[in-house]
């Protein structure tokens, strides 16, 4: 699903690499936590998977494809097979919940009939059934994140990338979001989640990958957070 072979990333005009010689593999259906302090390279790791950046050395394979060999115009095709969720939700404030979810289908050219069918379905799945016509501003943070997850999942991606999805949420709401991500993972979708949330990592007992100053320092099958603030 994801394979990094000796991947390094140096940003232009910076001497210290953001990632240094990282090698790892994530299998289909796994749930992986990515932990590490700010500046440890978590975001760079995720950006490489999304091919927002290209690595300086090594090879990144996602969904069986070498990202260095994908031409620019084929990148959108690749991203359609990924779902992404962020700390700041990234919803369109002037569109309703339903429209926000439908947006992910509109831009890839799904027919209106398909959209009308799949949007309520996925909103039911994330526990927001019947809130289709609400505006994002009327919803709580947890609900907004559920909308974002619905949008990420509506095209049934094989891989879901979550960058601190619970970063803006209180612990109780976070648990709800984690249950949802776990449910999505059980449908066969691989989930890679960067987080700072110690409780969640400790509770879920999933694979933990820790980065420190761009280096992979820990890869534990059923790990705990282990990182001290």
């Amino acid at each position, binding site marked *: 699903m994801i394979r990094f072979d000796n991947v390094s990333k140096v940003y232009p005009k910076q001497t210290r690499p953001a990632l240094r010689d990282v090698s790892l593999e994530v299998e289909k259906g796994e749930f992986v936590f990515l932990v590490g302090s700010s500046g440890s390279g978590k975001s760079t790791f995720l950006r490489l998977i999304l091919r927002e950046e290209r690595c300086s050395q090594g090879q990144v394979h996602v969904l069986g494809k070498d990202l260095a060999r994908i031409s620019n*115009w084929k990148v*959108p095709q690749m991203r359609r097979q*990924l779902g*992404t969720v962020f700390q700041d939700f*990234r919803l*369109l404030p002037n569109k309703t919940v339903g429209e926000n979810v439908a947006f*992910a289908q*509109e*831009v890839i*050219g799904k027919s209106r009939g398909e959209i009308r069918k799949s949007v309520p379905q996925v909103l039911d799945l994330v526990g927001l059934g019947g809130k289709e016509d609400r505006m994002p501003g009327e919803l709580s943070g947890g609900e907004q994140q559920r909308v974002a997850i619905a949008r990420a999942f509506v095209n049934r991606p094989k891989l879901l990338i979550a960058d601190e999805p619970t970063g803006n949420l209180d612990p109780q709401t976070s648990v709800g979001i984690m249950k949802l991500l776990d449910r999505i993972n059980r449908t066969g979708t691989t989930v890679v989640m960067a987080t700072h949330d110690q409780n969640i990592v400790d509770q879920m007992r999933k694979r933990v990958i820790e980065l420190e100053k761009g280096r992979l320092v820990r890869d534990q099958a059923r790990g705990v957070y282990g990182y001290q603030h």
Partner: protein
Amino acid sequence: MRAQFVLSEIGVGLRRNLTMTFAVIVSVGLSLALFGGSLLMSDQVSQMKGYWYDKVNVSIYLCNKSDAKSDPACAQGAVTTQQKEQIKADLEKMSVVDEVLYESQDEAYKHYKEQFGDSPLAASITPDQMPESYRIKLKDPEKYQVIASAFNGRAGVQSVQDQKEILDNLFRLLGYLNWAARGVMLVMLFVALLLIVNTVRVSAFSRRRETGIMRLVGASGFYIQAPFIMEAAVAGVIGGTIACASLVLGQQFVIEGGVSLAQELPLIAFVGWDAVFTKLPLILAASFLMPALAAFFALRKYLKV
């Protein structure tokens, strides 16, 4: 891709950016109006050339008695009948000559009277002071030099005059005006392009949230860029329509009616509606393609996909 989705995005973008859109419309309109104007001007010049060159002649003026004293070319005295016949025969043998007309002193006097009427100068002129001449119509008006070199300095010939030369000065002036119009057009076009680039940049910036989300969910580059490109193209076509309207109005009020130059200056053949109408599609196409291309290249820089 769904057309309605794209259309609504275009509308939102244009309204959000109203002042810039307005500036784009005006500058595209002005530059393309100048573009059309200069095209029409070229048409006008070539039409006038065709019309006038058809009417102009090369004149060979022959020596008369009074020239014999005053003009060194006629030092041998007035032209003789034999010389006249020889000149006529030579002219008719030349392949560039289309037609040769003879104008006698009396006819020249008559034309002179018609032209200058009762002026004091005309009153003092007598027929025998007027030169006899051959009026030569050439198959190709550019071939004046052939006649000039063959007859200048020949016995009995006072001078060879090409009327085309007088017109050429006028056409050269019109040509300069035309180039000036094109220069202004280029500057305006450049301004319009800069405005479009800036408008697109502002537009892309104000919608970076939407475009970011579009990238996130895997929208193709074209799908993300299309609303911006179409936005510029729509503004451009509105400007192009204004340019077309100003050309049509110009033709209507300056040449046909209003100032009605066509009636005031019947000697000049003005361009007609057909010339105007053939320019309109060209202007509209330019008003669509130019902003669209400018937007496309601006987006490559400001909208990373």
